[in-house]
């Protein structure tokens, strides 16, 4: 039933993880219920992204990347499904899913480093979304792998402050 565990292809992703797309009621405390369940059952969350689903405010979609080594996926899904506010759980195999993540980074830049920086963000497919006298803010919306690559590339620069959203995913259309 459950798909093969995804073998992460980049260093920052856990070795074995699953992506769960969880439709929940958009009510107070639902995220705490999910987080509390993971904590007390000893399931590890690698990343978690949550936002209202579709156009109506009744439901939210939570994309949880779980460490499949901390507990069998069947257990995680079974326990999650018992939360009354959880409406539906889709276990997304990476090959059957479209995954995207957003990366924002600010970095110091001067005349010397500017050409390299521009080259790096161009090659990564990222864009500059804010410019100040000595720093820029870079954004990349892309696959988790692309975000990993950009993150590695940015290690060459100074004063980097970086934030990633965690991934969101939906089933690939067939």
């Amino acid at each position: 039933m459950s798909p093969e565990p995804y073998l992460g292809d980049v260093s920052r992703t856990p070795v074995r993880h699953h992506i769960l797309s969880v439709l929940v009621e958009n009510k107070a405390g639902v995220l705490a219920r999910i987080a509390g369940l993971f904590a007390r059952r000893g399931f590890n969350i690698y990343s978690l992204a949550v936002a209202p689903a579709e156009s109506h405010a009744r439901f939210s979609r939570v994309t949880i990347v779980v460490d499949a080594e901390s507990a069998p996926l069947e257990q995680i899904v079974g326990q999650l499904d018992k939360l009354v506010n959880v409406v539906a759980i889709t276990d997304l195999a990476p090959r059957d899913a479209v995954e995207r993540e957003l990366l924002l980074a600010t970095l110091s830049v001067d005349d010397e480093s500017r050409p390299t920086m521009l080259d790096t963000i161009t090659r990564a497919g990222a864009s500059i979304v804010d410019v100040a006298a000595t720093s820029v803010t870079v954004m990349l919306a892309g696959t988790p792998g692309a975000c990993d690559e950009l993150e590695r590339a940015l290690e060459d620069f100074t004063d980097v402050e970086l934030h990633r959203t965690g991934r969101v995913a939906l089933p690939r259309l067939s």
Partner: protein
Amino acid sequence: MVQLTGAQALIKSLEQEGVDTIFGLPGGAILPVYDPLIDSNIRHILVRHEQGAGHMAEGYALATGRAGVAMVTSGPGATNIVTPIGNAHMDSTPLVVITGQVATSAIGTDAFQECDITGITMGITKHNFLVQSAQEIPRAVAAAFHLATTGRPGPVLIDVPKDVTQSMMDWWYPATVEEFDLPGYRPEVVLDENAVARAVALINESERPVLYVGGGTLKSHASQELLAFAQRTGIPVVTTLMARGAFPDSHEQHLGMPGMHGMYTAVTAIQKSDLLISLGARFDDRVTGRVSAFAVDAKVIHVDIDKAEFNKVRTADVAIQSNVASVLRAWDAAQATPRNLDVWWKTINLWRDRYPLVYEEPSAEGPLRPQHVIEAIAAKAAPGTIVAAGVGQHQMWASQHWKFDEPRTWINSGGAGTMGFGVPAAIGAKVGRPDRTVWCIDGDGCFQMTAQELVTARSEGIPIKVAILNNAYLGMVRQWQEMFYEERYSEVYLSADLPDYVKWAEAMGCVGLRARTLKEMHDVIDEANAINDVPVVIDFRTDASEKVFPMVASGASNDEILVHPLQRGEGS
């Protein structure tokens, strides 16, 4: 349109759910709800401590099969009922707990008697609600009862802020499940015919099957189906601590309770079985012992309403998500029948003959043997007597030595192991089944934790009988210190005379009796049985050195079961 206050709506909603009894204690934040209670036909039992209200509601639920209801105030009132909620969660007992909360405008300000009880109980309730408006009260109550009593039952908490119960609402009540607004809750399951067929195939080829009956069998009211299936197939039955009474102890196919203090035959039959048919059980560590050594040759059919139990502890060869009754009926319809079980029964009966439950003969002048006291009470008990217990040695002896022949006559704290459960749970059971005699078999340690509820019992006219097996110790801990800590007894001595249990009982308006010798034991039991208007407490002075056997040490394999010293001889 009828206009009601939120408080009136709350009481009226409980009436709509058929609630006849609330166990509770008022306080500031829940005050508005206690006013319309005066005009309701619902009986309110005023407890002396909120923990008592929770355990009473549990006892009521376990004895009746209906949801128990408790109501307390905010802050410490709410935190005092956390233990019963946790207990009910572990034992899947249907409970609806209503807590007062500070006004919505004060939530989050550290107001007087404020606590985040929905946050605190998130992990130990099936679900909980913080009601935001009076108009939502009927929905919350209806949904709470629906959640508590369907699927895998459990406790549900409704937190009601004071301004919500004080404001006005237009009375309504949800008529259908759709109006409960629970889009993520689907307790009904379709029986997987394919899984049923695969299970039938496993049963048909089995030679050493065992029916491993858990609390879910009682929860799904499947005792009749179990009896029919067991009798038709001839498969031996074991009933877990949570399932005592689901199958008659007097039935010859019943091997007794499995687990850490289970019958030798029940434990060993599971160990040697080739097919373990789990019916609403969850492979608790107290049953399995070391999991890797548990019933290693057995295939497993796991029937449970909660699919999260599958493969949690033991991998199932066939898992069927269903209530127990439906599956048993389907297996009967398919004529599932194991192979000839004569050899299996011959082996089982050898174990039975060799290792029955035994204990040393008590001497006439005492001290009393706790097992003997329980058997003496049982021998003189009215048919259908309900037995409640605390947690510890006395609980194990009660489960072992009382013969249960009827569902919902055994009230105890299984998963949580909550000391002090017995007295309030017995009171709740008696309220739910006033036609039955209710005995609480208690320990002296447990009794001291919740005995004040006997004041409640006396003032509310709830005549339970309490047998304190007074060995002056926290007996189970003492047993472990004797066996596993080189008899280094640490903080387990309680004294048999302090408190004076007879005086304490009398101070609480109960009859207090004491027995040290065999003659006194018989006399006080007769005396207690003759009293039906007030609670009775008996201080039975028992032997402190008595230990519960059989025993599988914590973490040991069930193959290493320790029988009673009297049975340890050559070749055992």
